[in-house]
């Protein structure tokens, strides 16, 4: 599928800008990339999701390469989450395809494409929830101590232990966690790092550094699976992904340089503002669709 030249130029600019945010704030940019491809460049949501996944595969590969010597990744955790992940990605892609194939739906007398409306609506709530969580989190002091694992309280055998955790954790619960993460990636085209990282830290009880490394590997695994399923479903455009990937890799370097000059607390607050701006943009698009 080809797009007008302006879309590719816009993708290059957007990729660079989001790459800069990734370098600045240290989180994946998929959760901004996918809705903005639709809202700003007019790419249909299923195509934006598939193309966003290709971009995430590129950026997560670079992150895994950079972290190859840090020995912080909990590989056992990553492999265990991967099982549920595979099923989740397939389910998420199928759900998105069903929305796309539903064609037009009528809301308040207006015909709107179901494949655009429903994923944007889900994005609106997911981003608003993450933004609210981050606002709450910025008001607390940062600590890198091992936390109590909330998941360890769930009594659902069999259990297993991890080198990065102090308590055994239920295997089925971890599998369902992987499934949820995969579903989100398949449906929304976000790597899941923005959700997985707080889950690993607050629910599983990992230290922040180990959680960041494990989450990077998991995002790589998930985006690899999602790339295959979305390409087979005809939801991905490699031509559109290229300017996003190239712009993103340059933007990340600019962001990293800028981040070195800023304080952590200030960075996190700016990030919340970016998130709120994205929520407002998606909200305005939804309103124009309905009214």
């Amino acid at each position, binding site marked *: 599928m080809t797009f007008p030249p302006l879309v590719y130029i816009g993708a290059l600019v957007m990729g660079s800008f989001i790459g800069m945010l990734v370098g600045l704030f240290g989180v994946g940019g998929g959760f901004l990339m996918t809705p903005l491809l639709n809202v700003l460049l007019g790419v249909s949501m299923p195509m934006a999701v598939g193309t966003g996944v*290709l*971009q995430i*595969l*590129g*950026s*997560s*590969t*670079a*992150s895994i*390469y*950079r972290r190859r010597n840090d020995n912080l990744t909990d590989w056992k955790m990553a492999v265990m989450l991967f099982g549920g992940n595979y099923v989740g990605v397939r389910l998420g892609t199928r759900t998105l395809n069903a929305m796309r194939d539903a064609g037009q739906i009528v809301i308040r007398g207006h015909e709107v494409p179901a494949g655009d409306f429903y994923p944007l609506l889900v994005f609106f709530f997911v981003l608003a929830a993450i933004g609210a969580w981050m606002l709450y989190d910025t008001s607390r002091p940062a600590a890198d101590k091992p936390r109590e694992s909330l998941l360890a309280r769930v009594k659902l055998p069999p259990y297993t232990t991890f080198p990065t955790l102090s308590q055994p954790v239920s295997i089925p619960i971890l599998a369902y966690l992987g499934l949820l993460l995969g579903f989100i990636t398949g449906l929304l085209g976000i790597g899941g790092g923005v959700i997985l990282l707080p889950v690993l830290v607050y629910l599983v009880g990992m230290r922040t550094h180990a959680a960041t490394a494990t989450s990077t590997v998991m995002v790589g695994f998930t985006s*690899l699976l999602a*790339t*295959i399923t979305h*390409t*087979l479903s005809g939801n*991905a455009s*490699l031509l559109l*992904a*290229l300017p996003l*990937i*190239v712009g993103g*890799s340059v933007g990340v*370097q600019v962001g990293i340089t800028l981040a070195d000059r800023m304080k952590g607390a200030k960075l996190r607050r700016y990030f919340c503002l970016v998130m709120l701006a994205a929520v407002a943009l998606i909200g305005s698009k939804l309103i124009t669709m309905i009214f």
Partner: protein
Amino acid sequence: MGAIAAFLDSALGQVLLALIVPIGWGLLSAWFFDRMRARRARKAVGAKEGSQ
């Protein structure tokens, strides 16, 4: 040439391309920027030693 084009148009070819291009670019860009950073760091150390 025709066989290659036909393969790249097939589902398997599309999936392989979609996997190889982002992974390849990710590895290449990470390697390139790492090298650039290491070179800049070496230069900075050299300049510091030169001034002493």
